[in-house]
């Protein structure tokens, strides 16, 4: 049968929703759901959960690109069939989890994974670096200020040992978003890699009439930088917009609303680094990431400046923080002035908030530490 373009509505099915999860449970999960007592990470990348029934499930966590092919998924299925009764899952951070119901089944699984080249690195548990949550970049999106998959590959190559070990003071969650829309939780990550534009939108007067609703474009700008204007196209005066470049902070929201206002640019675009965010409520409340490096260039294909910055921050943190201390908790304990000093990051005015709630971040106290910043 299949779809019949002549009768598109005939036999149409809709609103099925996702399949019921239970059919995909490995048997040991199905039997022990709600009965788990405790867990232990037996080695990096391997979790054991113990049930009150005495059952155990061993989970092997495997990292990898999120951008994967049909062939790759088929290979994953093959592994699941071989070791895991045909089941597997993905984590909330795009790792793959293979589960087995006995200790003895772990090593054969690990060996199999290891035998497949670098495709299935085991790790991402405990006090280490797990997979980088990321977005589309130049592989699919229209607004990116950087690529996603390539930057992630470059960074993870460099941090690989932190993925396969658990030597950090606490988990360190890295995320990447390729523009200020921040698809993901970049705004609440230990280390965030953020694509940023730095040039105001161009106005494509030739197309604007057809593709934009001008009032929406004008209303879209949080700083009111987009104003109505007139231009002459083919000798005819048309209604269009102009941008007050002094007030633009390059958020791209006007471009989202109006395709005739592109802002991407090879020189203008690049990466900002934010740090110290967290999501969990453990010890401290959730925290936003803070901007510490305003700009690094898009040096393709391996973004060495970005990779170095992330690594430097991670290692300064690893060296100095206390056990259990998340990156942001560490920075707050030592003071941000010490953070910049210990990470050897030059401080710039760009790190000083001048947006809406800015005053709350000013230092209204005489409490500070002397650092090299004070001459």
């Amino acid at each position, binding site marked *: 049968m299949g779809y019949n373009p002549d009768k*598109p509505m005939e*036999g*149409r099915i*809709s*609103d*099925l*929703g*996702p*399949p019921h*999860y239970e*059919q*995909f*449970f490995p048997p040991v999960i199905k039997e022990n*759901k*709600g009965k*788990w*007592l*405790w867990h*232990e*990470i037996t080695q990096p990348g391997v979790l054991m959960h113990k049930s009150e029934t005495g059952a155990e499930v061993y*989970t092997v966590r495997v*990292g*990898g*690109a999120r*951008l*994967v*092919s*049909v*062939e790759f998924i088929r290979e*994953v*299925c093959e592994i699941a*069939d071989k070791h895991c009764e*045909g*089941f597997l*899952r*993905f984590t909330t951070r795009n790792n*793959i989890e293979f589960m087995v119901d006995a200790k003895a089944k772990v090593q054969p699984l690990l060996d199999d994974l290891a035998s497949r080249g*670098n495709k299935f*690195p085991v790790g991402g548990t*405990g*006090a*280490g670096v797990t997979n980088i949550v990321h*977005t589309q970049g130049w*592989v*699919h999106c*229209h607004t990116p200020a950087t*690529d996603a998959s390539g930057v992630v590959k470059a960074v993870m*190559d460099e941090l690989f040992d932190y993925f396969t*070990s*658990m030597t*950090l003071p606490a988990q360190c969650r890295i995320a990447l978003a390729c523009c200020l829309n*921040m*698809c993901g*939780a970049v*705004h*609440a990550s230990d280390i965030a890699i953020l694509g940023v534009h730095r040039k105001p939108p161009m106005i494509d007067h030739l197309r604007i009439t057809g593709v934009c609703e001008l009032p929406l474009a004008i209303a879209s700008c949080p700083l009111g930088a987009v104003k109505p204007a007139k231009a002459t196209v083919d000798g005819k005066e048309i209604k269009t917009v102009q941008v007050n470049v002094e007030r633009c902070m390059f958020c791209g929201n006007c471009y*989202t609303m109006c395709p005739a206002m592109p802002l991407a640019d090879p020189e203008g675009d690049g990466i900002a680094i934010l740090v110290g965010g967290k999501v969990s409520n453990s010890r*401290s409340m959730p925290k936003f990431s803070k901007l510490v490096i305003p700009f690094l260039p*898009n040096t*393709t294909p391996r973004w060495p400046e970005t990779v170095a910055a992330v690594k430097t921050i991670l290692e300064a943190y690893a060296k100095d923080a206390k056990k259990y201390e998340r990156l942001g908790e560490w920075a707050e304990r030592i003071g941000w002035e010490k953070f910049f000093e210990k990470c050897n990051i030059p401080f710039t005015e760009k790190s000083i908030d001048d947006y809406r709630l800015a005053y709350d971040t000013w230092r209204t106290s005489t409490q500070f530490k002397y650092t090299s910043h004070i001459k």
Partner: protein
Amino acid sequence: MAKHETPLLDQLESGPWPSFVTDLKRQAETKPECWDILGQLELSYKERITHWKHGGIVGVFGYGGGIVGRYSDLPKRFPGVEHFHTVRVAQPASKYYSSKNLRQLMDLWEKYGSGMTNFHGSTGDIILLGTRTENLEPFFWDLTHDMGQDLGGSGSNLRTPANCIGQSRCEWSCYDTEECCHSLTLKYQDEIHRPAFPYKFKFKFSGCPNDCVAAIARSDIAVIGTWRDEIRIDQAAVKEYIAGNYPSNGGAHSGRDWGKFSIEKEVVDLCPTQCMWMEGGELKIDNTECTRCMHCINVMPRALRPGVDTGASICVGAKAPILDGAQFATLIVPFMKMSADNEFEELVEFIEKVWDWWMEIGKNRERVGETMQRLGLPHFLKVMEIEPIPQHVKEPRSNPYVFWREEEVEGGFERNVEEFRARHAA
């Protein structure tokens, strides 16, 4: 054989982390359009700029979401990606799969799409990356008819909800995140597929305050498990930890020598409310002071467990920074019982009340958190018929700028200035 030279991307084939470039090349062997993905991406690497056009509205009949339109801005040069729409397929709760199910889906995607995917998108969907407009309906037909599966959300509608693994493999989950996520996803299929909201809306479900699905940072309604009785303590296990027989934090720190475990330093002193102490070799907790931050439980999973009177905290209004800055979700209902038996009745009522209000009053492209900011938390609570309690805020206001309603003030607002002047010369 390579259709395009990719000297820059080739450099991403080395190194220990799996290479998407290698994977794409392998797929290109059977799906030649993948060469155009590589080719266009190589050009982006060379020119340091994207080559995708702005959006484009495509979809399947009757749905307003689930597909994101995308076209190359160099279609001549890269015809394989001239159309490159993504299809968002709703993922099962917790993202468990059978190989059978995945294979079937992969076969479909081999047939209708580029052969590339994202497992998974940031919201949680399976992202099938790149297909042509004319393939959408046939693909959707097969997806629904052959697999019994469906698209997820996009546009100004409810987005595909997501959850942490919860009770299926986590000892801390305070309610059944999978069942809750699944049943609400089914309940709100219409809201997912047919945009009727001012803007996007997201649900996420975490089983405990560790929040492994980052609900509080990413969802308009975040449902996060918690409890209201006492942390369960196994004092024998506490002793084992002290003796160093159980690894701290479930072994999460075993890669480094952090010295002998100290219950004082690692648990008692780090408790943010300072409500724990040791007494006669036993660990004591003053549960009335505990804020259920999970730290102590995280560190000693074999000795401590959440209580048994469990439920969830409901937080509202998280979002990314566009426009006014990012928001975390705000605690609105400190504790709600969560039960599949009554089909999460109380939560459903809550959700629909939020929607009723937001759909009426929210501006175009205004997330519910922004509407809350615009009208104020007291206003939102009033609409929700929730009594304001100190748990709603981190701290009371520090400005004195209180709004009073006329009926709250004795004698009302109307006054006679002449009468006033009779008593007070100007």
